[in-house]
């Protein structure tokens, strides 16, 4: 191997070089901006975690697994996993081996940015060596891998269903420029290297091209044209990158340490959130996952498009999309980069201004009389609309001989979650404070909650000293495990629906299933646990009207009917009411289902 040109430069490298310089400048400025936006405490946290060996190792591992190999995507969808990792990992290896080659054969040129990229143009082969052939092979091999990924990517644009995606993202103009230039890069590289394969050598990919088009290829006039095109494609991609979804490539490298440092979103488009926004690759997995995708007109309000509007700082659309969201958290569950869309949306909601002020000073005069007991039951507002739930709970409590009392018999103070979901934290604080004082002065040891919505706010926002907050699914399962609540097993098949706030919100998946399996047979739903589908009744959405919710509920009911259950069971009064309007089978509350197992 030896150099063909003494100066080691040709004007065709300029598009690439300029593009590269642009991207690097952009990313460095962006990095400084994001880090400066962090609070002092967060910055310190981030710095500390970078130097902690365990964390540093985790960062490296995550970068390798997430950025290059796309392990999570492989697990969810192998076809998509192959497509993404072949391009990312293949390209990465091309860059790595390009540098190794440069380093071995022309160490003095290793400092030039463009040299490893256009190595084959600047080099000439004198004689075959094993070492040289190894590199020829490796480079062609990874080129093939990347090209296969590109081919799949093209096919995905035509038939996304082949990859198990019903819908993919509608790309913006810059996304398209990025996409088409990315598609162009590797075929052009192949052709360019094919041109020089007669001079610089090559392997199974480039040599055949060279031989096949011998006359055309060996014309030196055409050689520079091919390399110009390759460089222009690279340059175009680099210039489009910061304004397109391909910004996720550099942004994820920043996001991973931030995530591992345990930072929290504090502003919808600053600091940690900004890093997340730029890491969104617009893959569109969240579109199919979103319960609102049951009707077409809502597709444009899914998370991937929200991210785009946040990038553009379109306040009107950001607010509208955020207010429409059911806040079920499913997009976050399926997201490859685990974009914290729930937190980002909450921050958008909290920044919204309202014309109407709310006053809750009358709460001071509210002094309920509550009996003394070990278990304090908080039924919540929805329970007055589903009296069967309350009845069944009382039946179960007395069957287990528990000393209990109800906190909100005949009316009580709201748990505060609807206000929090509307972004009105300050107003909710009044309720949280009032309820806290009622609960703490009651002398109870356990706060029993039968509504998943209330349960989440009790868990997340209340600080109750010395009191265990338990959802009734946890509590009754525990009573059964301890043998205090005895039930008989029947033959009914129950399909259990994971309420959003209980499952994805609080991570409770097993207790209700364990308890239900003691009274009957569990009939699995098509999508369940973390992937369960919102019932459509969620109080999370502020603007979705009844008509829009109907298709969501119908789709969710269909999901529950997957294995022909006798009953749909849910552990949230709102899901129950919503389902029972459209379900062909009986919908019962978790406590009602357990009562099936009590001796009559």
């Amino acid at each position, binding site marked *: 191997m030896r150099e063909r040109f003494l100066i080691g430069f040709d004007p065709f490298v300029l598009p690439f070089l300029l593009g590269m310089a642009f991207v690097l400048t952009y990313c460095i400025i962006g990095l400084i901006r994001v880090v400066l936006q962090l609070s002092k405490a967060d910055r310190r946290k981030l710095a500390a975690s970078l130097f902690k060996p365990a964390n540093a190792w985790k960062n490296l591992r995550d970068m390798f697994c997430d950025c290059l190999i796309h392990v999570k995507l492989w697990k969810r969808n192998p076809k998509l996993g192959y497509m993404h990792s072949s391009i990312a990992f293949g390209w990465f290896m091309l860059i790595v081996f390009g540098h190794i080659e440069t380093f071995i054969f022309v160490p003095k040129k290793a400092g030039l940015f463009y040299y490893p990229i256009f190595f084959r143009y600047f080099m000439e082969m004198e004689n075959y060596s094993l070492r040289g052939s190894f590199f020829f092979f490796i480079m062609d091999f990874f080129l093939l891998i990347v090209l296969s990924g590109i081919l799949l990517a093209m096919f995905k644009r035509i038939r996304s269903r082949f990859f198990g995606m019903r819908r993919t993202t509608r790309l913006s103009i810059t996304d398209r420029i990025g996409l088409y230039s990315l598609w162009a890069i590797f075929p052009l590289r192949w052709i360019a290297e094919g041109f020089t394969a007669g001079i610089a050598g090559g392997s199974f990919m480039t040599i055949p091209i060279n031989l096949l088009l011998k006359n055309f290829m060996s014309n030196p006039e055409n050689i520079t044209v091919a390399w110009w095109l390759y460089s222009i494609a690279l340059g175009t991609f680099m210039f489009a990158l910061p304004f397109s979804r391909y910004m996720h490539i550099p942004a994820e490298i920043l996001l991973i340490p931030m995530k591992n440092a345990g930072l929290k979103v504090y502003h919808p488009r600053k600091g940690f959130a900004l890093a997340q926004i730029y890491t969104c690759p617009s893959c569109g997995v969240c579109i199919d996952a979103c319960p609102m995708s049951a009707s077409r007109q809502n597709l444009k309000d899914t998370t991937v498009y929200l991210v785009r509007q946040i990038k553009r700082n379109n306040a009107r659309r950001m607010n509208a999309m955020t207010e429409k969201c059911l806040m079920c958290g499913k997009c976050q569950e399926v997201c490859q980069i685990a974009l914290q869309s729930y937190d980002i949306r909450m921050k958008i909601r909290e920044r919204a201004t309202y014309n109407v002020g709310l006053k809750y000073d009358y709460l001071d005069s509210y002094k309920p009389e509550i009996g003394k007991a070990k278990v304090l039951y908080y039924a919540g507002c929805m329970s007055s*609309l*589903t*009296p069967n739930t309350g*009845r069944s709970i009382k039946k179960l409590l007395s069957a287990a001989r528990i000393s209990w009392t109800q906190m909100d018999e*005949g009316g009580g103070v709201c748990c505060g979650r609807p206000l929090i979901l509307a972004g009105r934290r300050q107003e909710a604080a009044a309720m949280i404070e009032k309820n806290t004082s009622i609960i703490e002065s009651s002398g109870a040891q356990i706060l029993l909650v039968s509504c998943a919505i209330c349960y989440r706010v009790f868990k997340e926002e209340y600080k109750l000293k010395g009191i265990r907050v338990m959802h009734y699914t946890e509590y009754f399962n525990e009573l059964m495990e301890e043998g205090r609540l005895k039930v008989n097993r029947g033959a009914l098949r129950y399909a259990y629906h994971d309420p959003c706030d209980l499952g994805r919100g609080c991570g409770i998946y097993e207790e209700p299933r364990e308890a239900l399996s003691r009274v009957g047979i569990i009939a699995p739903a098509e999508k369940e646990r973390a992937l369960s589908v919102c019932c459509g009744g969620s109080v999370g959405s502020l603007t979705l009207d*009844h008509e829009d919710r109907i298709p969501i509920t119908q789709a969710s009911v269909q999901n529950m009917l997957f294995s022909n259950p006798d009953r749909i069971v849910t552990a949230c009064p709102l899901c129950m*009411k919503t389902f*029972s*309007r*459209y379900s062909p089978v009986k919908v019962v509350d978790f406590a009602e289902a357990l009562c099936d197992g009590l001796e009559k």
Partner: protein
Amino acid sequence: MAKENVVVIGGGPCGIEVARNLRDLGYTPILLEQQSELGGHLRLWDRLFPEGVEARKVLKELTGDLKGVKWFTDVNIESIEKSRKGYTVNVDTGMSFQTKALVVTTGFKLFPAENKQEYGYNIYERVITNADLEQYFHTRKDPRIQNPKTIGFVHCVGSRDEKACNRQCSKVCCATAVKQASEIKELFPDAIVYCFYMDLRLFGRSYEDMYLTAQRKYGVRFIRGRVSEVSEDIDGKLFVKAEDTLLGKPMKMKLDLLVLMTGILPGDSTKQLSEMLKIQTGEDGFFTPRDTILEPCMAKDGGLFMAGTCTGPKTIPETLSEARAAAIQVHKYLSK
């Protein structure tokens, strides 16, 4: 010449009247009824508004003269085949009937009150429906009705309620509620009777008089506002929360009996037949006729006729008039 068969599906008042008229016009009507007796919902009612005519008397009148009508009870439709010649109706007893004209009179069903769990039907002891009350008027036996002192009627249970999947007005329940409120007051003169309504739709002739009598003679208290929730205390009394929207005040009261005025939904067989015969239905599930004003008894398909409450809520006299109209239409179609 042998008399021509005409199949009528549904043996309620409408089906019976269609069949009787077709017979009078010289056909052999074949009347198919799912239940074990003819009469439909009329069998379950005690008296009819506005004059309080006994439902049984009307039914006796209708079923008393069925000579020349072939009627079958306890039959379910298995399938219906459509051909150029007309329809072949196959039923589960193994029989099948050929007919050139098919009349569908499958009627309605009452909204299942259990679906509005907040009102506590089948959960609380003293919550009943309008149908239960009619039954009580007839039999005077119901363990839930024990000399009530305070009684509430809830209008629009499962009607005009999108969350109950029924946006439409059921039309007849307002008048029924006024009638039942007066009747129960007659039975229990000391009781205080409340009606919780959102709008009172007393559209028919002399219905307004019925309403005024209920207020003046029986002292029924009409409260404009919906009941939001119902709960039960230890001795079985009902706690009702509602809003008086005219006073703009929330109200709470204790009641001994709560009557839910369940609305009208398309009957199960209406749904079944709409699938079987591909009859167009509205969003509310009732059949859509070819022309709602000019041809309310005809479906889009030639030879298919419909009448009664399968095309929307109706009173008994309206149903009977439509039945006669349908019979005439069938006759015109067959003698073409």
